């Protein structure tokens, strides 16, 4: 017991002494969540657009007002002809142009087809698509209003409800994603580095030659990073609740319990990494390439797994973050209980035990 005590104390001393790492450990999660929250948002808000109204009648003015009234778009000055629109697009002043042709009201009220042209800057295809969809929606609303006025007999109105995330906030997706990334990075990478450092500075030999049991070494290395990771979970949740306005729908204790499980998974991975390498740099490289990349690509956080080719879908099953991501989304956003996530929890537990078993076995043979 005393051995655990002195060892854990020493580990904390290392961490506290290294101010730069300390800063990374605690500031990284905050920076990540804020960057994802504010800078990398793919929501459309106050996008600059231009409206070229060649009709200048009541209907065209109504449509124009409706577009501007939506919080999605903001008018960027006046345009008088197509050349103005083009130069505004080229100089990046606007991302979308709406062109209302001549005789708009006339076409509408006389039963002819009225047309509105949307020109989007598709250098960023995702944004362009989203913008045109939003603008189309506003135009459809406008059409609905007019149809209502004319009382057409046949209309189908889809009533769309966005469940669990009614405001379509990006935060619902990236908070669980960033959480998985941070926990993996800190727990796996830092643990592996902490152990490999002992090899690099040769103190590992002294420890192995001492009566200290390997399990004490492993647990003592893990405890500080478990603590730090739990602090980070708390920070991320506080930011997401109070700054990003994303409440936790499910049980907060269940959420912490699954985070704890995932931290253990990550630490087990870190132990495995520390077993196969002798230098801190290699450990860091393996953690980044071997853990971070699959997490970004195959966890479902950045790219939907359902849309991937089948081999990639199969491969994604061995990425622990995928399961953690599902669990956190279920608990945090959908508010589901343990009954709905037990399968994923079981998979993560299995993975953790497997990693721990492998690293313990390998560690023992190194001793002999």
């Amino acid at each position, binding site marked *: 017991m*005393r*051995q655990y*005590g*002195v*060892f854990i*104390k*020493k580990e904390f*001393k*290392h961490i506290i*002494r*290294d101010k730069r790492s300390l800063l990374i450990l605690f500031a990284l999660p905050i920076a990540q969540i804020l960057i994802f929250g504010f800078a990398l948002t793919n929501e459309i808000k106050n996008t600059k657009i231009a409206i070229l109204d060649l009709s200048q009648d009541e209907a065209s003015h109504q449509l124009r007002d409706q577009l501007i009234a939506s919080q999605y778009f903001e008018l960027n000055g006046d345009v008088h002809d197509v050349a103005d629109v083009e130069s505004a697009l080229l100089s990046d002043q606007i991302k979308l142009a709406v062109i209302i042709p001549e005789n708009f009201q006339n076409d509408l009220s006389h039963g002819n087809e009225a047309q509105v042209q949307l020109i989007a800057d598709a250098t960023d295809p995702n944004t362009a698509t989203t913008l045109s969809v939003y603008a189309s929606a506003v135009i459809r609303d406008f059409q609905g209003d007019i149809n209502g006025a004319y009382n057409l007999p046949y209309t189908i109105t889809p009533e769309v409800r966005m469940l669990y995330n009614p405001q379509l906030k990006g935060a619902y997706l990236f908070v669980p994603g960033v959480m998985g990334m941070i926990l993996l990075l800190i727990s796996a990478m830092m643990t592996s580095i902490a152990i490999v450092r002992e090899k690099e*500075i*040769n*103190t590992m*030999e*002294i*420890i*192995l*030659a*001492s*009566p*200290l049991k390997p399990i004490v070494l492993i647990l003592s290395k893990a405890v500080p990073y478990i603590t730090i990771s739990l602090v980070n979970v708390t920070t991320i949740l506080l930011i997401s609740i109070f700054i990003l306005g994303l409440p936790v729908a499910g049980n907060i204790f269940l959420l912490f319990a699954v985070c704890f499980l995932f931290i253990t998974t990550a630490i087990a991975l870190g132990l495995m990494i520390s077993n196969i390498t002798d230098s801190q740099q290699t450990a860091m490289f393996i953690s980044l390439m071997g853990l971070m990349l699959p997490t970004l690509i195959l966890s479902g956080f950045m790219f939907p797994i359902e849309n991937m080719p089948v081999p990639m879908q199969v491969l994604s099953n061995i990425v622990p973050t995928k399961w953690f991501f599902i669990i956190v989304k279920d608990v945090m956003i959908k508010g589901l209980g343990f009954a709905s996530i037990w399968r994923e929890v079981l998979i993560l537990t299995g993975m953790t035990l497997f990693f721990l078993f492998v690293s313990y076995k390998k560690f023992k043979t190194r*001793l*002999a």
Partner: protein
Amino acid sequence: MHKEGQIVISASELTKTFGDFTAVDHISFEVKKGEIFGFLGANGAGKTTAMKMLIGILSPTSGNASVAGYDIYTQTEHVKQNIGYMSQRFSLYEDIPVIENIRFFGGIYGVGAKELKAKSAALLDKLELTSSAKTLVRDLPLGWKQKLAFSISILHDPQVVFLDEPTGGVDPITRRKFWELIYEAADRGVTVFVTTHYMDEAEYCDRISIMVDGRIAAMDKPAILKEQFQSPTIDAIFTQLARGAKRTAD
């Protein structure tokens, strides 16, 4: 507890192979309690490998050995409780203070809290480091680091201490001071097993063995060896023996 002349380390036909390479080739020797046993050899002669087998962090391919009365195959845990070890590369934690290093290593060797407090005070006093207790180890001169590492390795009063090239990289005067600490420990009955390639240090040992290509080429008291080889210095004997070596230093 220990009677005079008690054998503390004994190795018989101890061998370690890595694939085709025989690092340690059937070596046999005995070391008595309180003896300073010098383990000499060129780089790559197998000194460190032999030592690692004795302290239980490398398992032998064949042969037998016991340390402090315990078998190195079956009683590794007991062996570890009764030895101290100072590794080749200087190894304390550079980023934490002197006193914390003492507490840590004392702690993992199971020295009780109260005892540890008294011992670390005495240790600091002896090394004249009391005022530098809070200094980071990295800020100490190399010679002091080595003395500190040695003192820490015997803090838990082991029966045997294994020193793997403990004085690498320091001048002869600093080495001499280091050896005063070794003598002091030996006087208290600690058996010292030390590898070195400094031939002046060989003269300080009670008994030496010279390893060439994984085998022990000569072993006795320095004076007897000099007589036997009709050579004025250990250095000359070593050169004579090492000339026959097939292995090149790594």
